[in-house]
């Protein structure tokens, strides 16, 4: 028991303790995953929405890796999401029905595209990066549209059939397996990302974001590090897209549209970028907001999304996570001064 308590309260009086502290799992995080799992039984009627949230969270997590940690701005992240979705969809349609294998292949193909295009985002200013990422996504969308004999074009790719997950769990129409599957994938990839950003490599990425010139002067091959993280993030986005294709058994051109890249940015900013939890919290907030807005103003919900975006930029530094941290620190200070009196 005391060992457990010692785990949650790392010794921050030493330098190594302070550096290692963020890597420790906090009780709240563990509670969150348990809660997410329990929703499987608590809210079985909402699993379709929950599945969408898990996929969006994974997609936002992917953007967070390059934007929040490495500081690469991207307006075309949907390129990898869409590619993953089409690869998984096509595999499912043409014979390979095993979901896990499809997921891995989709992730690998997206990673390959990420690796190739990563050299394009190393050069130029923020504007150039925005334009190049946007351009890549647009080119992919045009390709998907033109090769409609393969992708189904504007009608979408239908006839995707999926075998049972691990050979045991069949996909059902209520989305129960889908949610469990997506949540498991999200958890595993979240765990890996968490290890990654708390490793020396993750610290390096933040150093590059802070000042690439100085990091380079320390003898670190910054370009190589950025290529690596861009490739990893692309694989994440590809897997997110593959999850969508597999669980809905349908792929449309929508997965490559510009609004998808913009939405995922909004998710990240809403939740707080540069924090892995920001992606998850942002995805939850975004989906519920979207659901609610689409309910009250089906046609004009975009207006409110825009308003939230503007307000978040103007007033909400660090998004919901930042808000939570400010509140927590404030409470901690209150608590401390109260205890001293």
């Amino acid at each position, binding site marked *: 028991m005391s060992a457990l308590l010692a785990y949650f309260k790392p010794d921050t009086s030493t330098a190594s303790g302070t550096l290692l502290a963020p890597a420790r799992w906090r009780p709240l995080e563990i509670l969150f995953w348990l809660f997410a799992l329990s929703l499987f039984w608590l809210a079985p009627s909402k699993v379709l929405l929950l599945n969408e949230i898990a996929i969006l969270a994974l997609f936002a997590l992917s953007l967070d890796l390059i934007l929040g940690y490495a500081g690469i701005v991207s307006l075309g992240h949907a390129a990898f999401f869409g590619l993953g979705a089409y690869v998984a969809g096509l595999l499912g349609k043409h014979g390979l029905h095993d979901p896990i294998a499809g997921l891995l292949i989709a992730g690998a193909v997206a990673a390959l595209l990420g690796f190739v295009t990563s050299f394009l985002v190393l*050069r130029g200013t923020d*504007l*150039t990066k*925005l334009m190049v990422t946007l351009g890549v996504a647009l*080119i992919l969308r045009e390709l998907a549209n033109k090769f409609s004999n393969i992708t189904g074009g504007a009608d979408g790719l239908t006839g995707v059939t999926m075998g049972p997950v691990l050979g045991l769990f069949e996909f059902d129409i209520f989305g129960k397996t889908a949610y469990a599957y997506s949540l498991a994938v999200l958890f595993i990839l979240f765990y890996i990302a968490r290890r990654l950003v708390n490793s020396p490599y993750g610290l390096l990425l933040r150093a590059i974001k802070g000042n690439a010139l100085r990091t380079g002067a320390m003898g670190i091959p910054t370009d190589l590090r950025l290529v690596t993280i861009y490739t990893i993030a692309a694989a994440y986005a590809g897997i997110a897209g593959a999850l969508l294709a597999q669980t809905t058994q349908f792929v449309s051109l929508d997965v490559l549209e510009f609004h998808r890249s913009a939405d995922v940015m909004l998710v990240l900013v809403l939740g707080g970028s540069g924090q892995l939890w920001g992606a998850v919290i942002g995805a939850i907030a975004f989906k519920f907001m979207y659901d609610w807005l689409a309910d009250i103003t089906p046609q*004009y919900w975009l207006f409110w999304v825009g*308003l939230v975006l503007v307000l978040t930029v103007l007033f909400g530094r660090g998004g919901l996570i930042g808000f939570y941290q400010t509140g927590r620190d404030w409470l901690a200070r209150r608590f401390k001064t109260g205890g001293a009196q």
Partner: protein
Amino acid sequence: MLTIFFDGFAYGMVLFVLACGLSVTLGLMNFINLAHGAFAMAGGYLTVVLMNRFGVSFYLCLPAGFLASAVLGGVLERTLYARLYTKSHLDQVLFSIGLVFMAVSAIDFFMGAQQQLITLPPSLQGRVDVFGISVGVYRLFVIAICLVLALVLQLILSKTRFGSQLRAAVDDARVARGLGINVNLIFTFTFAFGSGLAGLGGVLGAEILGMDPTFPLKFMIYFLVVISVGGTTTLSGPFLASILLGMADVAGKYYVPTIGSFIIYTIMVVVLIVRPQGLFGRVNAR
């Protein structure tokens, strides 16, 4: 063949008027304003309302569209944009995308989602023969206006006192302030002027490009292509880039309609890979 060439030229000129305001805010003030198309849409829709509901002459709509967008730009700059100059490019991008989303649904709400059409005055309709090529009078009118505008802009930036103050304020805002230049006022004025130009482009383009609520999103790409291919350090860069883009787009859609927009995106990406500062841009030390 030559008619397509000519139409592409006119199309490119409209793109230039639309985009040159953005080139000023983005290139000179270093602010990524994706909402630029929204100001153009404001000008375009104002024309539609004025002409179709109140029967105002098209010629009057030109200055009206310019002024209305300029005022709108000036007000927004003072209240919102000015807070974002010092923020990161990401914040600027998100903020302006948010504005675009709001503008798109607001127009949808007030005007409906359908495409708006205007009827040009009879003096601008029809075609004339120029050196044996049959060209639309309106296209000719647009090209004339745009050429004059481009010339005037270049003169303002390079020859007038305001132009040199603006360039000084952009090069180093602190030193410019120390020299007694009112940087904030100059930025507001420049932003308003850029938005006004977008509005004017919207009026001119209402007939050529068509006006519907998704206009800012649809043409955002084109503006950014013009700016990134042309570079932002000069006015002549975007000018040449918009003509190239206009011709490539019109010719591409005419000859190879199946891969029309594909060509443009590819060209953009290739140009940006080979020359990140744009085809005509200089390498900027900053």
